[in-house]
C-alpha cells in the first residue's frame, strides 16, 4: 500500500459506552476502597515517584474508573510502592494494593 503520509488521528474522546470495564470489575472485587476516591489529589501531591517522573496516581484511579485501560498498563509501572499516598488519603483508599491489583488485572488481559 502506498504511504501518502496521512493518517487518521484517534480522537481524544472517552467513549464510556465502549470502554473496557473488566479491570474496574477486578478492582471492585479485590480492592473495593477504590470506590470512595473523591479525586482530591492529596496522593499525587505527596507521591515520591511523581516528584521526578510524569506519574499521577490520582489520574490512574480516574482512568481506571473510565475504562481507559491502555494508559493504565504503563502508568502503574511508575509507582515505587512507598505507600505515602495511603497515609494522606482522606477516604482510606489502599493505593498500594490498587496499583498491584491493576497490574494483576492488566496482566491477565494479555
Amino acid at each position, binding site marked *: 500500500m502506498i504511504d501518502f503520509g496521512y493518517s487518521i488521528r484517534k480522537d481524544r*474522546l*472517552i467513549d*464510556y459506552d465502549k470502554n473496557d470495564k473488566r479491570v474496574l470489575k477486578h478492582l471492585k472485587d479485590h480492592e473495593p476502597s477504590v470506590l470512595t476516591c473523591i479525586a482530591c489529589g492529596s496522593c499525587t501531591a505527596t507521591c515520591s515517584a511523581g516528584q521526578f517522573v510524569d506519574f499521577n496516581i490520582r489520574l490512574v484511579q480516574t482512568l481506571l474508573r473510565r475504562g481507559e485501560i491502555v494508559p493504565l498498563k504503563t502508568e502503574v509501572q511508575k509507582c515505587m510502592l512507598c505507600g505515602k499516598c495511603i497515609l494522606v488519603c482522606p477516604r482510606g483508599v489502599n493505593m498500594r494494593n490498587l496499583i498491584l491489583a491493576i497490574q494483576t488485572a492488566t496482566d491477565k488481559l494479555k
Partner: protein
Amino acid sequence: MQDPNDLHYPGKRVIIIGGGVAGMTAASRLADLGEQVILLEKEEVIGGHLRNWDRLFPNRRPGYQVLDDLQKSLDGRVGIRCLTTVESILPQGSGFQILLASGESLACDALLLATGFDLFDATKKEEYGYGIYENVITSADLEAMFRSGKPVMTARGKVPERVGFVHCVGSRDEKVGNLYCSKVCCVTGVKQAIEIKEQLPEAELFGFYMDLRMFDRHFEEMYYEAQQQWDINFLRGRVSECAENLDHSIVLKIEDTLTSRPLRITVDLLVLLIGFIPRPETLRLARMLEIAMGDDHFLEPTDEHTRFNHTARPGVFIAGANKGPLTISHTIADASSAAVQIHNFLHPVNEVHP
C-alpha cells in the same frame, strides 16, 4: 390559647402568608406563645412542597412524618384559609388590613411572609432536552415516581440499566440568571441515586457535578455511603448537551475534568436536579409592602446574621425559602425564630415585665 376563629378577639393577631413548612412551623410556635394566628394558603390544602416529596435526606425518612407532625402541632389552634391569595395590604393603626381574593377582610398586628419558593423550570435549559426527550425527567418527577409506589422505569416501561443525574440545573448558572447555589440538590441527587439502587441494584448510576456541596450534618457520610456501599459514580464536569438515540436513550456530552478529556456516555434515564427560584408572588407582596429584595429576587432581611426575620417595615416579618434556598430543618429553625421575633414585637419586654 386564643380561639383562632374568633374574629372579634380583642388581643393581638398574626397573619401568616403561606402554609408550607415555614408557615406551619411559625403558626404552631405562635400558638404556643398564645397568639391568635391565621394562616393563608393558595392551594387546596396546607403543606407546601413537602406534600410532593417521598422521602427526606439525609436519613430517607418518609416526608409525611414531618408533615403529619407539623399538621398535628396546628391542631385546631390556628385559623386556616385555603384557596385564597392576598389582594391588598393596607396600613391600619399600628397593624394591617388585609383583603383576600375570597373577599374576606382581616385585620392583624403583625404579618409573616412565608411564601416559599418555586422549582426551576427545566425547559429553560433546552440543551438538556426536558419536555423534548421522553427520558429526561426532573428530581421532582422522580419523587412523584417514588411516591406513586411504581418501580422506576423509562417512559416506555423499560427497566433502566444506566441512570444519570445532572447537578446544578438552574443553579450557579449565569445563562438562566441564577448565580446562587440551591444547596439541597446535591444531597437530593445522592439520596435519589441511592433510592434507585435500592430498587435496581444492577443499575449503573452517575452523578455529573461541578462541586458536591455536602454542607450539613450526615450529608458527607451519605455521599460516602453512596460511593462505598452503593457503587454510585460521580463524574466531575458540567453536562454541555444531550441528544436522543433512536431507542430513546440519552447521549450526554461532558468534559471529564479529572482527565481533561471530552467524554460521551449513554443513559436510559436522565434526572435533572432542579434548584430553587424566587416566587413571583413574593415579589408582588414585597413591592406591595415596600420591603427589601436582593438582585436575585429573594427577600433581604434587615441583617442577614442577626435580624434575619426582620424587614425595615415594622410588623412585617419574613421566614423560610422566600429568603433563598433552605433545607427543611433550617426552614423549621428559621420559622421558629420568626415566631419568637413576632411575639417579642407584639409584647415588648417592658410590657411583659413592667
